[in-house]
């Protein structure tokens, strides 16, 4: 199996799905000739031509609006938002239309599209290039939100997203893009959207993470296990909406302790939702309060300060140890 990074893995998924299905169309700002500002769509323009890999005018609402039209009429658009911070310009179309056509028409009209975007911080970028607003998208019923954490699940989940019958917001942790490589098979591989993955089993404590936080969380877990000999279960959420409550509940039943690691600001976020579901389902199994390790409720700091605000390995280790000791 070739070892590739997340950029190459996403590119592989796009290339294979485009080869297999002529209705798959890629569109966005700079996705064609340039191959995308992160090179995610590199080579697609040469291979599939400019009618299938479209450099659009610079207008996010427009990109989403035409993607909805394409999806309504038989195409499978995979639209790119160049950066997280510009994706809000397409929310009126996503929330107002993509998420609603199915229910609005009682199932007659559907919008099978994917909107990909790099998200998250720690890449020394300018304002609006470092946001984690997965919770915003997750609040729209009818929209699925998927966040891979590494090359292999990125490829498999993107294939699933393209084949999904509903709009999927696919958020790619840009900090992970070139951070590490994994074995990714050439042959087809998909994962089910709506399922979390238990990446490591353990009975003493559950850690839940997603996106760029999963990689450093794994390192923090390894450290704590080495230091204390504790057995820690690590859940990679992968699917933000719909969320896999059962996998979380089963784990808490076993461990009774939970730490959630979230890159986004603390309030009204995914960690809040996870905590609420734990309360709903397995509150009485808890032996310690659910611990949230998050960013703070501040406007995303510019890169000079951002690393002080985004959870880092030490903070995660401390959070795990405090919860083990509680």
């Amino acid at each position, binding site marked *: 199996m070739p070892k590739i990074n997340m950029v190459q893995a996403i590119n592989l998924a796009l290339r294979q799905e485009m080869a297999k299905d002529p209705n798959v169309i890629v569109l966005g700002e700079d996705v064609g000739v340039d191959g995308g500002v992160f090179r995610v769509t590199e080579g697609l323009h040469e291979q599939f031509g400019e009618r299938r890999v479209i450099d659009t*005018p610079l207008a996010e609402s427009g990109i989403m609006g035409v993607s909805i039209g394409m999806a309504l009429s038989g195409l499978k658009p995979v639209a790119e938002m160049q950066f997280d911070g510009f994706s809000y310009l397409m929310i009126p179309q996503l929330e107002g239309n993509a998420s609603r056509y199915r229910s609005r028409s009682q199932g007659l009209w559907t919008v099978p599209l994917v909107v990909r975007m790099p998200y998250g911080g720690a890449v020394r970028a300018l304002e609006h290039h470092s946001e984690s607003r997965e919770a915003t998208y997750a609040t729209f019923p009818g929209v699925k939100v998927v966040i891979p954490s590494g090359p292999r699940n990125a490829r498999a989940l993107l294939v699933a997203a393209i084949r999904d019958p509903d709009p999927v917001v696919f958020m790619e942790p840009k900090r992970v893009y070139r951070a590490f490589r994994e074995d990714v098979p050439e042959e087809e591989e998909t994962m089910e959207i709506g399922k979390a993955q238990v990446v490591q089993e353990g009975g003493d404590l559950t850690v839940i993470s997603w996106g760029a936080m999963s990689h450093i969380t794994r390192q923090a877990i390894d450290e704590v296990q080495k230091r204390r000999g504790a057995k820690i279960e690590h859940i990679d959420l992968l699917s933000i909406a719909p969320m896999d409550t059962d996998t979380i509940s089963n784990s808490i039943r076993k461990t009774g302790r939970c730490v959630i690691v979230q890159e986004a600001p603390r309030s009204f976020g995914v960690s809040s939702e996870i905590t609420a579901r734990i309360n709903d389902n397995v509150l009485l199994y808890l032996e310690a309060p659910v611990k949230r390790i998050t960013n703070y409720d501040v406007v995303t700091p510019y890169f000079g300060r951002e690393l002080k605000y985004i959870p880092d390995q030490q903070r995660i280790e401390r959070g795990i140890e405090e919860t083990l000791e509680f």
Partner: protein
Amino acid sequence: MPLTMAGEFSTSYLQILDESGEVDRELEPKLSDAELLRFYRAMYLSREADQRMLKMQRQGRIGTFGPGTGQEAAFCGPTFALTDKDWLLGSFREPGARFMRGEPLSTALLYYNGYEEGNALSPDKRTLPIAVIVASQTLHAVGIAYSMQYQGQKDSAALVFLGDGASSQGDFHEALNFAAVWQAPVVFVVQNNQWAISVPRSKQTHSRTIAQKAIAYDMPGIQVDGNDALAMYQATKEALARAHSGGGPTLIEAVTYRLMMHTTADDPKKYRTEKEEKDWWSKEPLVRFEKYLRDKGVLDDKAKATIEAETRQYIDEEIKKFETRTTFKPDASFDYVFGTTHAEIEKQRAEFLATLNQGGADA
């Protein structure tokens, strides 16, 4: 019934100083020698600052930035036509314009090194922070223009810069429409530098000119040689005069070229030819402006050498100032969430500071 003419429209093009530095004497704006030198210095500083910042970026002393090289006439010309009573709203490719409005280079460097402190120019300068969300600032300009009109500040208009790519955004079209409906004192300057990252102007709009978009909203629109400092100044001056006298908005298209990369993270070789870049280098704005000043007897070798030396010295001092500032309040982000803080914010600030003290987050 036969078709009748519902309206007939045209768009004109202005050039005063041509590529070879020949000036049209009839159109030449009346600027004093001192004014012309100030104008030239501003363009020269912008170019030199770009060069130094490119070096600093390569050395890791600042982060990503987008050079303005080649567009100095397009952003300094309009800015030179403003008074302190007018407002300036920019995007991110008008470095010289911001310097002209009083932003020290050391402040710009702070911005490009990831500190909000670098985006904070005193409100009395009437110059808003860099707007990264393209075209979003065009609507703010209309709101400000309305506000000036409402408050009876007749000498005040808003000037807003955007790019050819940004002209595709709904915000821009909404701004043109609001401005025309309200007859607001606002001047839109589209820096059409032919590219939006890798996307050529031809994929951005099917219109032959961007200036003609004004016709749809029934406002004056003009296409200007954006590498001609005199024409950019003159077109803006006229638009501002109209705005100040209740004549409403104007759209100016500056035809120019982004001579360098989009930002330091970009590689133009992927999408455009070096020949195209070379052709545009032969039309760049500083050389022809300098020739004009020399022909006019405003600039000679000695004066040029002085400008060069003083600019270099200024840049050196500003870089030093920027680099000697090494401490930044870590919890500043908590200071500016709200005007009046809240218990929850303060609780989180305390937690943040305690974490820093424990040697937690990357110190």
